[in-house]
């Protein structure tokens, strides 16, 4: 039976992650030379143990499930924390086969990794997998991958090629920082020029496919967290802001939009929990759940961030107000791991509603 609620352990995890992020996230750093907060990442990944939640204990993990990871994603979205969680603790971790030695290092937070695919790559339709832009010959890799998430600071890059999935030291690749639409999750263009790699598995396809569907399912929880922050922040604002000698939240033109947003977020929570639960229980409905989550939650998060900017009026349009960080993260996420349009096309196949 699908469980769409949060259990007590999950709520405790949420509380400790939220407290950490409240104290430590400082978005002024993202315009500086080191946008990614590696100190915060170590606390989150190693001290709180958030990187290894879904990893089995024999692989050095916590032996929890992706459900707990989804709760961490909600909180990271809420705070738009500049840490390489999606790249390392979700995509790279999901791509690695059980027993791979790197898994324990990622789970403990000792090292971080990124999956070398463009950020916009989503789960593929049947028989239509992505074509890799890097090739391998005798364990040496050549080629380029653009707009890779969390690659700038990664110790290891997981690189799919036609010859298999390779683990390459981050320093062995040429990494060019991209001026990213979402500064809180900076992207990098990667170039491999005869870079040495360790063969992780001979067939990259299924591992990357698993990573992408895992990422899609969990990114919905990040979008949920963003949307919740936007709604709560906006509700507080319209209760205090007065125009025409009234709180602007007393106008139906304002309150009805927020009521509709609340309804949508209530739905997004059910959909995101369903995707996380399907991941945790290895439910055969996972492909549907993941695409449903992306197709539903991304538009809700983007709308929440857009409403947050609009209903804050002038202050919402400033750099000083933190709304724009959520707008940019939500909007970038809407392209990441397959757009809503792409996921609807996937659903059309999965539930037999052909074009």
């Amino acid at each position, binding site marked *: 039976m699908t469980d769409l609620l949060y259990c007590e352990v999950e709520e405790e995890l949420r509380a400790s992650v939220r407290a950490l992020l409240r104290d430590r996230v400082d978005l002024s750093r993202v315009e500086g030379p080191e946008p990614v907060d590696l100190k915060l990442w170590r606390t989150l990944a190693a001290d709180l143990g958030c990187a290894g939640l879904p990893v089995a204990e024999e692989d050095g993990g916590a032996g929890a499930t992706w459900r707990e990871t989804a709760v961490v994603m909600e909180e990271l979205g809420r705070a738009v924390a500049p840490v390489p969680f999606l790249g390392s603790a979700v995509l790279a971790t999901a791509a690695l086969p059980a027993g791979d030695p790197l898994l324990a290092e990622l789970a403990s937070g000792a090292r971080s990794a990124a999956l070398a695919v463009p950020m916009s790559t989503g789960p593929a339709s049947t028989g239509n997998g992505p074509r890799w832009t890097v090739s391998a010959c005798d364990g040496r890799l050549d080629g380029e991958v653009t707009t890779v998430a969390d690659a700038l600071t990664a110790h290891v890059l997981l690189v799919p090629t036609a010859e298999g999935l390779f683990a390459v030291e981050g320093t062995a690749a040429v990494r060019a920082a991209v001026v990213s639409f979402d500064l809180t999750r900076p992207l990098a263009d990667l170039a491999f020029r005869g870079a040495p790699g360790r063969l992780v598995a001979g067939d990259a396809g299924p591992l990357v496919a698993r990573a992408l569907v895992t990422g899609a399912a969990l990114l919905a929880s990040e979008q949920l967290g963003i949307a919740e922050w936007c709604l709560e922040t906006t*509700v507080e604002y319209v209760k205090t802001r007065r125009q025409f000698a009234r709180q602007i939240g007393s106008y139906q033109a304002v309150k009805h939009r927020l*009521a509709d947003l609340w309804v949508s977020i209530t739905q997004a929570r*059910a959909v995101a929990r369903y995707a996380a639960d399907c991941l945790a229980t290895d439910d055969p409905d996972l492909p549907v759940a993941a695409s449903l989550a992306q197709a539903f939650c991304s538009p809700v998060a983007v709308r929440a961030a857009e409403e947050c900017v609009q209903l804050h009026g002038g202050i919402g349009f400033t750099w000083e107000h933190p709304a724009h960080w959520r707008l940019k993260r939500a909007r970038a996420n809407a392209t990441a791991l397959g757009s809503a349009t792409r996921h609807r096309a996937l659903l059309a196949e999965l539930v037999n509603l052909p074009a």
Partner: protein
Amino acid sequence: MSTADLAREFLTGHDPATMEPLEFLRARFDAGLAWVQYPPGLGGLGLPRAEQPAVDQVFADAGAPDNNPRRIGIGLGMAAPTILRHGTDEQRRRWLRPLWTGEEVWCQLFSEPGAGSDLAGLATRAVRDGDDWVVDGQKVWTSMAHEARWAILVVRTDPAVPKHQGLTYFVLDMTAPGVEVRPLRQLTGEAEFNEVFLSGVRIPDTDRLGAAGEGWAVAQTTLMNERVSIGGRAVPREGGMIGIVADLWRERPELRSPGLHDALLRLWVDAEAARLTGVRLRQQLAAGQPGPAGSASKLLFARLNQEISALELDLLGEEGLRHDGWTMRRPSIVDFAGRTAGYRYLRAKGNSIEGGTSEILRNIVAERVLGLPQEQRADKDVAWKDLPK
């Protein structure tokens, strides 16, 4: 002994194959197996509501007669919880048993031509006369009034106080002199509802529920139960109106176009999200975390039904121009699936009006869930008789 065992034990002494259905239902009520959450003596055993489905299953498996719950939904869902909460012992004993067995159908006399969203502004008057009250006024949107034996009724007993304070709640005998029921034909051509005219109708004071002037608080019990019963049903994927359109899409490739494909998928996603929201809501209720998400369900399903039925008409094209008939009928249940796409489109227009308009539900969500300030109101602290009308 589990409640299911109690039901099985009951069946050993009461054979549904040989007993009169009504006698069987009365015996089931008297055994406390009607609604186990009700008190002993009133059809229940004082057990948690969650125990009831197991009992119903035992009776269904045994092929026992049921009380046709869809026909008596207003009695079961609205009148009964209100009588239980606010009635005297004598009132509970008089009304609950025949209500549950379906011997007596109930209807609800709340809305008026001048009091829809603003229910507390209603104008039907009741004046005390000895041991009776004399009622004059008009009610509207009353389903089942033409079959009902009893009605739950809210009237104004004191016009000189602010509107919420001058209301009183009664149970009305629909066979009393002065009660006139007329069908109200709606834009679908049929009449699910009625207008009810009350002219000098006498109600004994013993049929009052709650104190005079406390009618608004009593009505809240009824309305809360109405919203719980809407959208509270478990459905499988594609179990609602989206399934009709999805099947049409699969069976009729010649109707497909790229624009309609994207529209269909968007609605499929919305419908599945709404379904999962319902699943989560029921899990919250079962876990004892009653949330405010119930108000969301009705808003959602109103919009979804309207958009999906409109898409179905787009998909059908020329066929959608043919209808199955405009004959005036008086159906006792709404049959969305059994008629044309045009009927679904038209009937769904009522979904955002009946049981609280979508605009009022948004106010409720905004004010009670999000804590936003109320609209500025002209009718607070003013006697009802002095309000502009």
